[in-house]
């Protein structure tokens, strides 16, 4: 076993709170063959096709903001041509023969293109939603790089829903040019370690990043979320909305940084994180950082943590719901805005099922 120090925050705080990074013990990580990466496109129009490269194995250092290293990794490119509109689904499916995936997905969205990309990290059983699911001891070390050219629009949804014992390390890096808009939704639903990082540079004027995140934790899950968005262009905009619920002895770290760089005049940054604590031993840590080197901006953040309001519970139970159903309803309600934004019935059901799972 080796201890890795991962997912560093952009600025440090006092060491005794153990939030500057996360220490994870892992067995020796080795690159292994993975044969269940599928990319599905809707090539409706022959002229405007997404170009999906063959997946290559790269011999070299795999680096990401999470800093879990490897000296070999898979690499796949997806190019969305200018003025096209493409929906793509990337499936990374784990089973007993495919337990380790280390790789990068590079998504280039050309000028004025629009794309919706779902990255579904599941076990085969989970994707198929079968009754008896294998609890695969999976390892996912994924990097998604998204480059948006001028006026491009992209919606990226990452579903992290492999298995109870899975360890996932998902790093998303984004670069947005003028007027580009990126809507990133991450669903951290299942897994023993759910370590994720989103790093975005709003380079162009009027570029915009919206990050929506749902996280759930039970047993002794560790959730470590590190979102860092830099406003560089004028009138750039960032919104971060993270909602979660943890129970049993689960631990959650939320680190959200909005960094207003100098000359990002009239940039706007808003950040909100809300955590529902469902047990006495669940532990919530939050570090919502606002860094500002530009006068003419507006930034705000808010954080809340606590148990479900007893009054709300009582109200629903007087309407005939038992306590568990009432809790599920309240949690789903708090996630509602993000669930609705997903616009995919299957994924919405998955989120609701995951909520059911943690309210036993």
């Amino acid at each position: 076993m080796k201890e890795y120090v991962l997912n560093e925050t952009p600025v440090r705080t006092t060491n005794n709170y153990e939030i500057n990074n996360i220490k994870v013990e892992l067995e020796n990580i080795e690159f292994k063959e993975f044969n269940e990466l599928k990319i599905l496109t809707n090539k409706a129009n022959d002229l405007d096709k997404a170009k999906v490269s063959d997946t290559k194995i790269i011999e070299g250092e795999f680096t990401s903001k999470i800093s879990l290293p490897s000296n070999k990794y898979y690499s796949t490119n997806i190019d969305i041509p200018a003025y096209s509109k493409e929906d793509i689904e990337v499936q990374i499916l784990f089973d007993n023969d495919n337990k380790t995936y280390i790789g990068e997905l590079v998504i280039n969205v050309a000028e004025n293109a629009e794309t919706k990309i779902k990255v579904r990290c599941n076990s085969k059983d989970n994707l198929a939603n079968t009754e008896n699911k294998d609890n695969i001891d999976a390892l996912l070390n994924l990097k998604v790089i998204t480059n948006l050219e001028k006026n491009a629009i992209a919606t990226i949804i990452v579903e992290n829903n492999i298995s109870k014992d899975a360890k996932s390390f998902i790093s998303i890096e984004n670069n947005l040019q003028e007027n580009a808009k990126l809507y990133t939704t991450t669903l951290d639903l299942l897994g023993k370690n759910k370590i994720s990082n989103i790093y975005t540079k709003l380079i162009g004027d009027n570029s915009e990043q919206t990050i929506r995140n749902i996280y759930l934790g039970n047993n002794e899950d560790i959730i470590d979320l590190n979102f860092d968005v830099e406003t560089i262009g004028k009138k750039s905009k960032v919104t971060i909305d993270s909602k979660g619920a943890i129970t049993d002895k689960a631990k959650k770290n939320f680190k959200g940084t909005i960094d207003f760089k100098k000359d990002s005049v009239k940039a706007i940054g808003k950040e909100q994180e809300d955590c529902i604590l469902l047990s006495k031993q669940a532990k919530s840590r939050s570090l919502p950082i606002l860094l500002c080197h530009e006068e003419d901006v507006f930034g705000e953040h808010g954080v809340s943590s606590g148990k479900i309001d007893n009054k709300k519970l009582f109200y629903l139970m007087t309407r005939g719901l038992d306590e568990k159903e009432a809790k599920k309803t309240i949690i789903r309600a708090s996630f509602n805005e993000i669930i609705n934004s997903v616009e995919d019935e299957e994924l919405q059901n998955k989120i609701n099922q995951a909520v059911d799972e943690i309210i036993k």
Partner: protein
Amino acid sequence: MKIDVNQNDVNKTELDRANVNKTNVNKFKDETVENIYNLKNEDKYSYKTIGLTEDIIREISEKKQEPEWMLNIRLKALEMYEKLPMPNWGPDLSELDMSKIATYVRPQSKLNSKTWDDVPDEIKSTFDALGIPEAEKEALAGVGAQYDSEIVYHSIKEDLVKQGVIYTDFDQAVKLYPDLVKQYFMKCIPMTDHKFAALHYAVWSGGSFVYVPKGVNLSIPIQSYFRLNAPGAGQFEHTLIIVEEGATLHFIEGCSAPKYNEINLHAGCVELFVKDNASLRYSTIENWSKNMMNLNSKRVIVGKNGKIEWVTGSFGSKISMLYPMSILQGDGSTCEYTGISFAGRGQNLDTGMKIVQLGKNTSSIVDAKSISKDGGICTFRSNVHVKPTAINSKLTVSCESLMLDSESRSDTIPNDIIETDDIEYSHEATIGKISDQAIFYLMSRGISEKDAKAMIVRGFANPISKALPLEYAVEMNNLINLELEGSIG
């Protein structure tokens, strides 16, 4: 089409933060503002030590004629200081060279005088200019005045003495009340806490000791004022306050120093004990000179149904690392923190607060504001830890930051650890510039743009000045006015 992502960006933000201050110190002329705080007396002393060695510590202890137990603590603290690392977060402290700091400066004055007539004219006139004797006459129940490393004047109203209130300088307390001091000294802030706590315990000198017996309510504040005159010197005062069961106290702390071209250091220590059902308001107006490194430690332990109120205005120092900490140990204990930091040219003020909620039904309210201008850096750090035993607790943290130009920086780095589900907790922060609409509104009422901005800034600071006695609110507003001069319009 692919854009390269700089893989070394992890520490870029830290570099940005370090470079802003260096750039702006070079860019702006180093002005020395002529005001009462910048009055310099000749560097006269009866005894002085420079640097930090075991011999120096033994000398200081011998000069003070301390008991052996205190010397042993100093020596242990020196060992600890040498072992502990510098902090690897926050402002850059590499400019600090302890071998050049005057760790002890004894002024040419009778110590612990009971009348201002016994204080040398030069020193007295400094305190006069700062308004201390005046405040003593009009508004205070007791005053302690420290000049460099020693208390030169101490007074307390007679009727308080009759009620059993003790207010004396800390050196005297060690000799006169050793059992009481031993019971509490270093029990709130251990020397192992961090490197500058260890340094403090090695070279502490001066400071105040306050003991308020059970049930005694002091309706008028007590003040200690710390003035550091010597260039290149350190001030390491120790303040220990015990408010017994059911008692109340308002303690005011003020500090200032004239500006020199060499580094001065402040590594004081404030230990506060608020017992069951007692209440303490601790107000600070800090106006150290802009060559000062202010690495002070403050902490309180609050008992059952006890209350601590912090009111803090930080205006001075070149570099400040200051995070008053409240441990709400007793059930029903509460904390209120109201603070403002104002970072101007060449300043890096890294301030905030820490709260640990241990007892049941505890509650905390934090209202913090910061203003930065002319390249100043303001960083607000709140560190809040709600333990599993803090059932049915409440906690609200609010932080607002105002930037007056784009040369400055304003960062908010709050850290919240929640270990119980039975809590109502919320945190919010905003950052931005003075509202254009507010300026327009005031200008449409005939006020100039410059005055409008100044009014808005003073309004922004209003919650803090409201929490202070009138004389100190006026002083705080004067400090704000001084800071705003030349920066707006």
